[in-house]
Every structure is written in C-alpha cells, then in structure tokens.
C-alpha cells in the first residue's frame, strides 16, 4: 500500500519538492545581501534607541527591499499550493478515472486505504511547508524592522503555516469527494481556502485576545509626534488622538488636527498638550505571537480534522 501511494503520487511529490527548493534557493539568494546590512544581526535594531547602523540599514531596507513585502504576501499561497495540490486529486482522480472501483475491491478496506493516503500525503505536505517556512523565517528576519505581526510575518512563520497546509490538504480531499473531478476540486478548495484564511486573518485574529489600549500624553517641547507603539512588530488595530472629552480622533480627523497643530508654528506637541489631546493606540503586542500562533494552529488543524472526518464518514457506507 505504501508503495502504491508513492507510485501514484510521486510525480506531484517530486514536482512540489522542486517547487519548494526553487523558492528556497531564490530566498537565500535574495536574502543574503539583506542580511549583510546587519553585520551584528538585526535583533538589536528592533527596540529603540536605534544606533546609526540600524537607521542606515532600515533606510536601505525600505528603499531597496520594498518588493520583499510582495514576495512575502505571495508566499502565503504556498500552503495551498502544496496541500491543495496533493489533496485535491487524492479522491477526485480515482473518481474521474473510475479506478476507485479497482482500488477499493482489493484486500485493503477503503477506510484503511484512505487513512494511509491521508497520513502519507498529509505528512509530506506539512513537511514541505515546514522546510519552506524555516527558510522564509530566515529570509524575513531583517524585515522585522518593518513590522510583521501580519501576513508578511505571522502567517509565514512559526507553526501556523503547517496548520494552513493541513487545512488546504483536507479541503482538497473533501472538495474532491464532493466535486469528483480534480480541477474543479482544486479550484473550489482554493476559493474556500482564501475565504477562510482572509476571514480569520482579517477579522477574527485581531480579537483572539482583548487588544491593549494605550494613551500617552504628549511631552510638550519634545517634538515627538511618532505614532504606533514602542515595538514596530506590534499589530496595530487602530490609532489616533483622543481629546480632553475622551473622543477618539482617527483617520482624516487626525490628519486635520495634526495639520492644525503644525500651523501654529513652533512645536506641535505644545499645541496638542495645551488642548488636552493625547496619543491613543489599540494593538496586539508582539509578545502574543506564540499564544496567537497556537490559537490559529488549533483552529486550522481542527477544521482539517473535521473535514477529513466528514470524508471518512462519506466513504464508509456508500461509495460514489
């Protein structure tokens, strides 16, 4: 049976291994000059005060490596590309070609057949993504300076990418069982994968835990209007000013207010301070990276298990 899994899926597995190696090699090639900007490592540049090397490197990073954000965003498709590519044809191809009738009348009960395939191919896809995610983790290390509690960092590192892969794999298998053809199954699984990932990353993740709200008074005469938090890696949900009456001023209102403060001439912090206006920011601190990784992983792994359980239940009594 294991021989059979290898024989049937070796083309995809080899293709994916090549795909992962090519991306990994490219990341190493692109990442080396970026790492060279930080001869002493980039970690000490994360917390102020920044020394000259850090400031210089940060400027270079923004200027020369701005494209890396796009690279990182695109890498979010890798878990689907790997998990879905192995998952979607698992059942669909057998159903398409009618070979399920051949496979399931050998002396391997079909639930065992499915269990072996899911175990082997699920493990392969998770391992491929684990390898890729390790390389991505190395590549984007200096980019922490530009943030990363988002889809350019959080979603690509840690343990969550493996759970995404498992989810994509399970989605592919389930879509194959329902749609019975590889291509529609892959397409359907892709759409669902994106929908769930966007929903969780965009709307649910910011509320995994109660966000932290911080209100700071302006120090008159400091000239310091910088927004955000003290750590560039925090996930900022909302920020702006808060006036003496406790009203939040964000977006355009904040821009207008800041313009007004600058118009007074001299230090805008004095104007803001005098009017009782304070800095206001709501965020998830980067210290919550691991708890959030854990919640995300459990969510997606749980969805994957649920989908696979449905597929097992589906083939238990009735074949297709």
């Amino acid at each position, binding site marked *: 049976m294991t021989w059979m899994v290898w024989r049937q899926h070796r083309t995809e597995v080899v293709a994916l291994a090549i795909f992962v190696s090519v991306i990994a090699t490219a990341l190493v090639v692109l990442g080396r000059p970026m790492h060279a900007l930080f001869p002493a490592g980039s970690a000490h540049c994360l917390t102020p005060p920044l020394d000259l090397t850090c400031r210089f490197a940060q400027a270079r990073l923004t200027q020369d490596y701005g494209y890396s954000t796009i690279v990182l965003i695109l890498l979010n498709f890798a878990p689907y590309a790997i998990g879905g590519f192995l998952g979607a044809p698992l059942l669909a191809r057998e159903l398409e070609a*009618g070979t399920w009738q*051949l496979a*399931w009348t*050998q*002396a391997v009960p079909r639930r065992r057949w499915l269990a072996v395939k899911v175990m082997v191919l699920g493990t392969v896809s998770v391992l491929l993504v684990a390898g890729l995610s390790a390389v991505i983790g190395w590549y984007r290390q200096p980019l922490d300076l530009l943030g990363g509690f988002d889809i350019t960092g959080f979603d690509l590192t840690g343990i969550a990418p493996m759970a995404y892969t498992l989810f994509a794999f399970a989605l592919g298998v389930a879509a194959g069982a329902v749609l019975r053809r590889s291509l529609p199954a892959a397409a359907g699984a892709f759409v669902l994968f994106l929908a769930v990932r966007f929903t969780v990353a965009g709307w649910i993740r910011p509320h995994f835990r109660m966000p932290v709200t911080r209100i700071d008074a302006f120090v008159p005469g400091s000239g310091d209007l910088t927004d955000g938090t003290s750590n560039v890696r925090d996930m900022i949900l909302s920020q702006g000013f808060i006036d003496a009456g406790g009203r939040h001023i964000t977006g355009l209102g904040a821009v207008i207010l800041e313009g007004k403060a600058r118009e007074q001439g001299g230090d805008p912090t004095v104007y803001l301070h005098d009017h009782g206006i304070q800095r206001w920011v709501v965020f998830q601190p980067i210290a919550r990276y691991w708890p959030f990784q854990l919640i995300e992983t459990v969510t997606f792994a749980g969805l994957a298990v649920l989908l696979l359980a449905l597929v097992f239940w589906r083939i238990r009594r009735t074949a297709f």
Partner: protein
Amino acid sequence: MTTPPALRTRNVGKRYRRAWALRNCSLELPPGRVTALVGPNGAGKTTLLRLSTGLLAPTAGSVEVFGESPATNSVRVLSRISFLAQDHPLYRHFSVADLLRFGRSCNIRFDHDLAVRRLTQLGISLDARAGRLSGGQQSQVALALALAKRPNLLVLDEPLSRLDPLARQEFQQTLMGAVADGDLTVLFSSHAVDELERVCDHLVVINYGRVVLRGEIDALLAEHRVLVGPRVRTDPRGSRSVIEIKHSDRHTTMLVRQGAAPIMPGWQANPVGLDELVLAYLRRPADHEEQIA
C-alpha cells in the same frame, strides 16, 4: 453444514437520493457457476454488482458473499471477491508491471506468476503503459489482475460491451479457462443477450430495479414455449403462465411458461430462443412483477 452460496441477496434495495435503483431483489448464486445478469440500461445492474462487491451498502435487505456482508469491507471478504468494473478502469500511467505490483501490494494472496503467464501468452508486454494498450488488451490486463487475486467470486460489469468480436472471444476464453481451473463463481452483467448461451449457465433478468426472471438457462428454455394458433381474444393478464401475447390478422402467438402441459387442438408449440425469452420478459410492463414471484 452446507457451504453458503457465493452470493445471496435477500429483498435487497438501494435508494439513491430520490429514487430506488434496485428494489426487493432476492437471488442466490450457486457456487462454481457462471451467471449472467441481464437488463436494459438503468435497470439496476451496476447497482446490484456494486452491492455484491461491497462498494455500496444496501438501503434495505441484505447481501451476503459466502455468508458475510461485503459492506463490512473486511479483508477476508474483500480477498474473496474480484470486481472488474465497466470500461475496465486501470491506472493509465502505470506500466503493466506496475499494475501487477499494485495487485501484490494491496492483496494478501496475489498470484503474480499466474498473471504474468496469462499476459505473456496474450503477447502483452509488461513494460507497456496501460493507457497505451488497446481496449481489448486493457480488458485482458484488468481480467488478469482480477484473476490473480484468486477470488472465489468474480463480478464483471459489462465486460464485453466495448470489445470488438475478436477481443470478445479471447476474453471469454480466458474467463472460461479460469472457471474450469478452479473454485470460481462468476456473475457478469450484459445487455447483449446473443452471446450468453455460450458462456453462462444461469440467468438473472432485472428490469425497473426488480428481478423479473431467474434460473438455469436450460431449465428456463425447457419451461417456456411459443404457442401459435388461430387468433383469439385472450387477455394475457388472465393467465399467470402467459408471458406475452401477440396478435396478427389471423394468428395469435403466445409465449407461455408451462412445462409440458398439453396444448389446445389447432395450436402448435415451438421452443423459444434465449434472446426471444429475455426480450419478452423485458417488454412486460412494470406492474407485472408481482405475478412472477
């Protein structure tokens, strides 16, 4: 204790989402025989075959293969059944040798040498890709795979339908050879009646998802007669033994099921051919089923 029949179904029924594909179907396959399952497209043949290989579980009634339900999907029951599905599906990218290795890796008993011998005899190269073989060769490879399992029950779904006459003959020869070799019961479906007599000794006819006729072919042929006589106005529903009645201007032709009962004067009795017999049963409308029992 007597050995259980190769296949026994009791009032088995299978309902898909909306409609019953098969209903109240009871039959028994004596071991060591070749049984043909005949019926028009959509009569429920494939459903019945899938039920008997455990690919489907029945909605109602029971299916037993050598006394065990194939729907349990146990290794033991799966080892005893081979199934050759319609259009003999194979992994097209596999070489023939790969397919044999697949058989070996997924079965406890798999007579690899037997399969190699059969395929070599037929001149099928083990290095050939399954997808590149002709339809006849593919069916032979599928049959060799099925037989190498050394099954006790071989189930074939329309094995002959897509084969040219020569391939058909070769296929039948292989099949007959396997039956002669050992302890093998064969059930195959077909909608071509003409070639059945050569291959099989039992017949099950299904229509509208129900069994309309079953029995040993020789016995069935002996039981039925075609009577030709002067035109009458008999209603065929009036008599349980009249299967079909046709009137022409002057004559009435009846197919009757009544062993050797004497016939009326002026009537002539002729033996019936197998396809004529099957077609007569298939032509009967759905509401006749109850009368057949």
